[in-house]
């Protein structure tokens, strides 16, 4: 058993922490969100330069030989600064599909581009009616000669406005919600027939509704075996959940620290509000919730390589526990900040918003509690 980071991981963390602190201040972030582009490609280029975008790929695939723990470290730092750049969809999700299911040619074509920062991916899996069931798909991919024709509507595809490529899930066979018949495709976003409606999310990111109208792709677009994509999707989304949990931990840590600091400064009845025991104990409960969330994030991250049931139990436990902690810490942080907590001007509200939306990504607390029960 070992909870230490390697020397290299420590360096990655320090470097990234510095970058976020120095170049990703709250005002910088605000400006980026309000800009027409909505993100900071120059930060993305820096991340590529620092090797961050190549970290979780093996050296054989053109990366730097890191793994899930590296992704965790990176995402936690991003969470601290509420970084909006699409590391999760590009590196963790698309990268995960390529790593685990990609052919040599697909890896060759895409991983190098991810590592260098030239390709940005979005993962189009959710649908308006699918809720959190990856197999509940109305999007279809019909066999057409050697290739496929895609039709459907994907919902809230995070990072899609910035993306050059999409990873898409679609049904190639079977009935709605069947475990078989689900396939995964990778294609350029400018493939004819792909249209998007882009918008801003409440937590400052960008997303799209993505429509596929008779989109023709070749056989090389299929990742993994046709109709057997669900297990791959579950593996990659479990990895994404572990990474997301790390991001939430970073955001929770800062939200909590800000709240404690605020309670020291803010005076009421002639004394700092941090001297009131009723608030102290609430901040202790926030701290405890944070530590428990970190523990569950470690558990999920370190179990990603275990057998399927062990992995899913750990990941669901983390999504439940971190989700509950995120809700508690977000809400309490705002409450203790009083009126300032609900203004756009104070940073705390923006942490609250990110921690709120966290729950809806890749299955909320209820969904994962159900999955945990089903596996128990």
């Amino acid at each position: 058993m070992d909870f230490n980071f390697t020397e290299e991981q420590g360096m990655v963390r320090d470097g990234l922490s510095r970058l976020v602190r120095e170049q990703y201040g709250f005002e910088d972030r605000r400006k980026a969100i309000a800009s027409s582009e909505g993100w900071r490609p120059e930060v993305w280029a820096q991340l590529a330069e620092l090797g961050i975008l190549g970290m979780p790929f093996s050296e054989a695939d053109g990366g730097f030989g890191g793994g899930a723990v590296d992704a965790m470290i990176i995402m936690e730092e991003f969470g601290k600064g509420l970084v909006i750049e699409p590391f999760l969809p590009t590196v963790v999700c698309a990268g995960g599909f390529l790593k685990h299911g990609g052919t040599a040619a697909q890896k060759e074509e895409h991983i190098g581009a991810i590592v260098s920062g030239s390709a940005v991916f979005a993962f189009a899996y959710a649908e308006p009616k699918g809720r959190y069931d990856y197999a509940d798909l109305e999007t279809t991919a019909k066999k057409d000669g050697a290739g496929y024709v895609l039709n459907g509507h994907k919902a809230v595809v995070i990072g899609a406005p910035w993306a050059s490529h999409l990873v898409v899930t679609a049904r190639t066979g079977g009935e709605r919600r069947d475990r078989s018949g689900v396939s995964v495709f990778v294609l350029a976003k400018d493939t004819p027939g792909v249209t998007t409606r882009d918008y801003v999310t409440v937590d400052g990111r960008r997303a799209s509704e993505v429509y596929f109208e008779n989109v023709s792709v070749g056989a090389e677009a299929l990742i993994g075996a046709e109709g057997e994509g669900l297990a791959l999707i579950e593996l990659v989304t479990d990895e994404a959940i572990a990474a997301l949990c790390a991001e939430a931990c970073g955001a929770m840590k800062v939200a909590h620290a800000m709240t404690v600091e605020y309670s020291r400064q803010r005076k009421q009845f002639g004394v700092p509000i941090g001297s009131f025991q009723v608030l102290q104990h609430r901040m202790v409960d926030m701290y405890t919730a944070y530590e428990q969330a970190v523990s569950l994030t470690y558990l999920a991250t370190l179990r990603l390589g275990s057998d399927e049931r062990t992995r899913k139990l750990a990941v669901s436990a983390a999504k439940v526990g971190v989700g509950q902690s995120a809700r508690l810490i977000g809400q309490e942080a705002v409450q203790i900040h009083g009126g300032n907590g609900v203004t756009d001007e104070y940073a705390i509200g923006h942490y609250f918003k990110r921690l709120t939306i966290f729950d809806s990504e890749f299955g909320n607390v209820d969904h994962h509690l159900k999955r945990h029960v089903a596996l128990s």
Partner: protein
Amino acid sequence: MNLEFTPEEQAFREEVRTFIAENYPKHLADFGMREDMEREDFLAWHKILGQKGWSVPAWPVEYGGTGWTPTQRYIWSEENARVNALMPLPFGVSMVGPVIYTFGNEEQKARHLPGIRSGEVWWCQGYSEPGAGSDLASLKTTAVRDGDHYVINGQKTWTTLAQHADWGFFLCRTDPTAKAQEGISFILVDMKTPGVEVKPIKLLDGGYEVNETWLTDVRVPVENLVGQENKGWTYAKFLLAHERSGIAGVARSKRGVEKLREIATHETLDGAPLIKDFDFAKKVSQLEIDLAALEITELRTLAGEQAGKGPGPESSILKIKGTEIQQRLTELTLEAVGTYSAPYMGGVSNDNGSNEHPVGPDYAQHAAATYFNMRKTSIYGGSNEIQRNIITKMILGL
């Protein structure tokens, strides 16, 4: 980072498991807290461990500790929990022992440590008073110097299992004029000394686990003072941090959840096993998730210890979460047994040789009593509110 045990640790686990299987007293298997427990029952396993050299694993090797790593100690507690073993009582092993080897003089070490290791001497803790529970520093029991003796007067309460105790460690006020925390001393008292009187307090579960201890003109030789006079608060705080580090009870709660699942497969609801009821199963899963978080948090704390950090204020988290989980576990077990949570058998059970057959299934026998008993966990060892005060001060810096 990884969660795997090393081959050496796996081998250690095998060694421990074999030792427990071969040596743990059969009549104490899966003991449960029973009203008929005798002094010798409590001490049986302790004595066996004393002979093996495993009764005080966490102590420094020079005082008889094992030299086990924190991970090995964790494995040790897991393996004991697997058979629900009755572990050595904490009063000697985890409380007064570390105070004596850390702050005591050579004479005290030589005199008291062997009896703690071997399980020959039973210790009890004299901290709380009727007017000084969470506000421990307001304690009133006095120790007045008279020649080469202290004369102790006062009343202690919640003295756990003092009815069996040979020795007690008491916090007494030696300087009534000093600030509350600064006039307290840590004194060892032979419980057979004239003037010491122990009166059992009957608890909600029907058992006698704690006592009122009255001290009337108790004459104690000055060599029983540990460390310096008036510095007892320092030793008391040290002891409390030690006490808390084992208090999470993760291994035992894991075993408890397994048992809960077993019970819920026997119990039925609408003709199906209770565990198939989503509302119930959800509560069990939530408990398991919280327990998983606690387990990793404890392992992280242990890893910190392994790296040389003593048990710090983080142990307050373990206390708060650990006791909350223990309480929810007993609450869910109570829920699981349903109507058979109600019969009060007043100590009648098959395991104490009674001819009268208990009412309801065996697993329901102790559900209510255990639930009642476990309400103590968020109160003792520094109430959970006090733990929050500690975190407030030591970690949040407020």
